[in-house]
């Protein structure tokens, strides 16, 4: 029988992580399903588990001059209701799961799960989110895009845990998020798209595009975004075909039970157009 450790403080977490070989469980809304067996018997975890959801010191959302800090055990609903959190991230969370799941699921869990269809990841990549990662004797900071190494693969040592999600404060003039799924709630994305724009003197100062569920990683290409800086408002609105062309080689969806690659690719193009039309 696998053991269950229950942490009530961050110190508990880090000590247990240092001594035991455990998998971290926060809300458990994904982990329980991934390890589901039969009714009436314990969840079929393959290793011992460390429950962290009772750690109150990680349940805070704070800010300083440059960043918003979201504690790792904050529930998605708590994040959704907090006005410090950038609107585009709250837009994506509103379309994640359902209230019942959002009351226990965490953003750190969605990150740790590292699914290419993870709904929050698209906006977090767009916002250049960083993670605070702690072990018993160290604290390190890492960009989310470097933390996710592949499908369900993350750069986290056995004795480490995500303690905060750090989101730089940026005032965009336009943000746009769209999830395409069969049902508003409790649906895994066929694909998702996030766009953001900041203008200065009628010229593009910062423009960002991120696509989810169309490649192993969330697709965000800085070299394409940089090409578009300095373009005036009228010109950028008319550049959809060109921009779709730039992203074409990176949008490599697959056929699966949720959708097919032709549909996904076509919808990505339409969402680029829709975003540009809103400028």
């Amino acid at each position: 029988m696998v053991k269950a450790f229950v942490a009530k403080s961050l110190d508990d977490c880090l000590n247990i992580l240092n001594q035991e070989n455990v998998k971290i469980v926060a809300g458990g809304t994904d982990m329980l399903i991934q390890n589901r067996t039969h009714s009436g018997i314990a969840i079929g975890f393959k290793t011992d588990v460390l429950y962290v959801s009772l750690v109150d010191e990680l349940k805070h959302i704070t800010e300083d001059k440059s960043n918003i800090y979201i504690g790792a055990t904050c529930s998605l609903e708590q994040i959704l209701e907090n006005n410090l959190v950038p609107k585009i991230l709250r837009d994506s969370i509103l379309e994640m799961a359902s209230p019942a799941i959002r009351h226990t699921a965490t953003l750190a869990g969605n990150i740790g799960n590292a699914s290419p269809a993870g709904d929050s990841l698209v906006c977090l990549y767009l916002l250049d989110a960083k993670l605070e990662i702690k072990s018993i004797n160290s604290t390190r900071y890492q960009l989310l895009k470097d933390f996710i190494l592949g499908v369900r693969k993350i750069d986290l040592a056995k004795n480490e845990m995500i303690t905060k999600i750090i989101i730089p404060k940026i005032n965009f003039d336009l943000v746009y998020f769209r999830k395409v799924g069969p049902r508003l709630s409790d649906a895994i994305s066929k694909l998702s798209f996030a766009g953001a724009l900041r203008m200065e003197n009628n010229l593009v100062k910062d423009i960002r595009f991120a696509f989810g569920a169309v490649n192993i990683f969330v697709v965000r290409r800085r070299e394409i975004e940089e090409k578009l800086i300095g373009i005036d408002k009228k010109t950028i609105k008319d550049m959809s075909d060109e921009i779709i062309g730039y992203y074409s080689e990176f949008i490599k969806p697959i056929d699966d039970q949720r959708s097919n690659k032709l549909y996904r690719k076509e919808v990505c193009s339409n969402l680029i157009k829709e975003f540009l039309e809103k400028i």
Partner: protein
Amino acid sequence: MAKIKFTLNNEVVEIDKDLNMRLLDVLRNDFNLTGPKEGCGEGECGACAVLLNHEIVNSCCTPLANVMDKEIITIEGFSITERYRIIKEAFAKTGGVQCGFCTPGMIIATESLLNKNPHPNDFEIKIGLSGNLCRCTGYNLIIEAVKEAAKAGEGLW
């Protein structure tokens, strides 16, 4: 196995149990509370919904460990309240119940929503009920039931 204490339907309970059990199984098998039901078993249907610290959660995706020192209310515990009476009557009046399998979860979702937002608009009601599936009514009657409950129970939430 480990001892775990929590409040269940307004009573403090303690049980010696594997903390990796799902809350749903513990409620049904150890406490004989069969109001929460297993529908999909993966957090999509809401038939297993209960209130955790007065917010809706799916007991099929809640490990027992996560309810330590928390307050759980199932439909059985909720059914002794005036709020329940109002919601029940609203569901009956509008025809929001047919086979009844989803109804405990729908009522828990209604309570969780109205507790936070006593005057929800149609969109907010749809979001509030979005994790609960009903295969009979087509939802419109349930949405009507929530509106009716909010009206009839004015001041209760």
